[in-house]
């Protein structure tokens, strides 16, 4: 039953991974060739504004949320040495989560005004109607109950750092979601904006980040067959993340009329985030040291390492752009969305895929059938995604120059940004192709994949014989 629940969360996440980027590519086309799709979108009654909301919500909560919960349901019982408590509830929670976001897609699309339960809410990334929020909270608390009880039933006293991140991440997810989707409704004016900023950034920092890092902390030592580089750094990284991240949100609205100390606190917190990032990056890149050749054979390690490179890039960029000196220039431009894509579509999507590539053979009993399709996904993320990101960022820089330095209107900037926008659309479509390859590989492996035994590589061409356990390394 536990495997059944994991498979439900896993397959659902793959569905959302395909739906979200398709909408993203359509949106980018609207910037490149305005009006080209109007006839279809008017017929569908799906304007850009609603499509954007669906795009962001289903990717954050559908793809990342569900793939991370699949990993939690797999990883925590193994680290605890205890079976998952009430896997039937975890399975029902998966259906509830899916129902919540299917309802969100339909209701955002329908755009029913003025209803307390089914109308779109005025909070970025919290636009899903109250009906979705209620279903999500019930599902989340159910998962938290299952995995927390599993940890209470554990055989081992020691809690590996992944448990800290994944269990802690579930609780910060619950708290953050409650603030951003319920408490925010009670405020208005600057107070509302402060709460909204807190939610907006912590949707990434207190939901996606701890869960994604918890998966990487699990996959990297096991896939590289090396011990984790530093226990101490992992603990320092966890607690400094929890200390500095919650205060960062208001760097999104540095120009708003609130007391200066609040925005300065956000800027200082944002720069201090460099400390947990440093701890994480050192641990992730130093752990496979001495056995880096495993990166050739192990796709989970490949994706986790690529995710770490994207994570490093996004975490260097973030603190700089949160400061006044940089923020005035890039605010209101696509630079910001490019940064969000680097974190969510780059770093954490890679961590999600690393987790799925690790879990899939172990819950289905099948190896991934084709190294080629795995390589298509990997290289589309390694080559096309950075070009997509550069086009996105370039578009933001050009937009700011056009508006802030040349005095053009935002609409006029379309004339000076068509090259980066074209690059964004074409490369975005290439990344989407990589996602389709990922989905196809998983689906086809169900009937084409060879039987998997613990210790084998996930991809058959890399060796069907069980691997020798690394001396002094991680043991499975």
């Amino acid at each position, binding site marked *: *039953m*536990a*495997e059944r629940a994991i498979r439900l969360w896993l397959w659902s996440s793959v569905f959302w991974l395909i739906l979200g980027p398709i909408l993203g590519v359509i949106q980018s086309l609207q910037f490149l060739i305005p009006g080209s799709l109007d006839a279809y979108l008017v017929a569908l009654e799906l304007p850009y504004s609603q499509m954007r909301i669906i795009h962001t919500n289903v990717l954050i909560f559908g793809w990342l949320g569900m793939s991370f919960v699949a990993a939690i349901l797999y990883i925590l*019982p*193994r*680290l*605890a*040495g*205890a*079976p*998952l408590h009430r896997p039937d509830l975890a399975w029902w929670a998966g259906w509830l989560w899916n129902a919540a976001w299917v309802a969100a897609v339909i209701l955002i699309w329908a755009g029913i005004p003025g209803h307390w339960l089914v109308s779109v809410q005025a909070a970025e990334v919290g636009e899903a109607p109250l009906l979705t929020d209620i279903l999500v909270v019930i599902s989340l608390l159910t998962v938290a109950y299952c995995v927390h009880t599993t940890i209470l039933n554990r*055989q*081992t006293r020691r809690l*590996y*750092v*992944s448990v800290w991140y994944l269990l802690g991440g579930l609780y910060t997810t619950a708290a953050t979601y409650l603030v951003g989707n319920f408490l925010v409704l009670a405020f208005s004016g600057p107070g509302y904006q402060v709460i909204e900023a807190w939610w907006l950034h912590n949707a990434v920092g207190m939901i996606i980040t701890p869960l994604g890092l918890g998966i990487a902390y*699990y996959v990297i*030592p*096991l896939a590289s067959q090396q*011990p*984790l*580089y*530093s*226990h*101490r*750094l*992992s603990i320092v990284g966890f607690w400094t993340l929890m200390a500095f991240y919650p205060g960062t949100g208001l760097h999104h609205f540095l120009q708003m009329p609130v007391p200066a100390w609040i*925005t*300065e606190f956000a*800027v*200082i917190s*944002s*720069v*201090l985030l*460099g*400390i947990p990032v*440093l*701890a994480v990056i*050192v*641990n992730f890149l*130093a752990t496979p040291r001495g056995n880096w050749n495993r990166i050739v054979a192990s796709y989970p390690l490949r994706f986790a390492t690529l995710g770490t490179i994207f994570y490093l890039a996004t975490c260097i960029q973030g*603190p700089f752009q*949160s*400061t*006044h*000196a940089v923020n*005035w*220039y890039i605010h209101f431009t696509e630079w910001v969305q490019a940064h969000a894509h680097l974190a969510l579509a780059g770093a954490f999507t890679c961590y999600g895929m690393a987790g799925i590539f690790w879990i899939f053979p*172990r*819950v289905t*009993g099948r190896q991934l059938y084709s190294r080629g399709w795995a390589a298509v996904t990997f290289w589309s993320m390694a080559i096309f995604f950075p070009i997509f990101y550069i086009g996105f960022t370039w578009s933001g820089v050009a937009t700011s120059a056009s508006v*802030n330095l040349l005095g053009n209107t935002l609409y006029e900037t379309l004339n000076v940004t068509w090259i980066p926008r074209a690059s964004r659309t074409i490369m975005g479509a290439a990344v989407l192709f990589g996602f389709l390859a990922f989905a196809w590989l998983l689906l086809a492996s169900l009937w084409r994949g060879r*039987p*998997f035994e*613990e210790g084998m590589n996930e991809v058959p061409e890399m060796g069907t014989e069980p691997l020798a356990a690394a001396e*002094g*390394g*991680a*043991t*499975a």
Partner: protein
Amino acid sequence: MSDPQSRNREPIQIREGHGRLPWWGWVLIVLALIYAFLIGPFNWFPPQG
């Protein structure tokens, strides 16, 4: 293939080392502290120049 339920109960132990933060890590932390408190919060380069 082993029984999925029994696989789920197999404890996994990930060994941990005692590596230290490299010296350049401490340099980066000091730079982050300087940037956070002395440069970041102040509007040194406003749009008007």
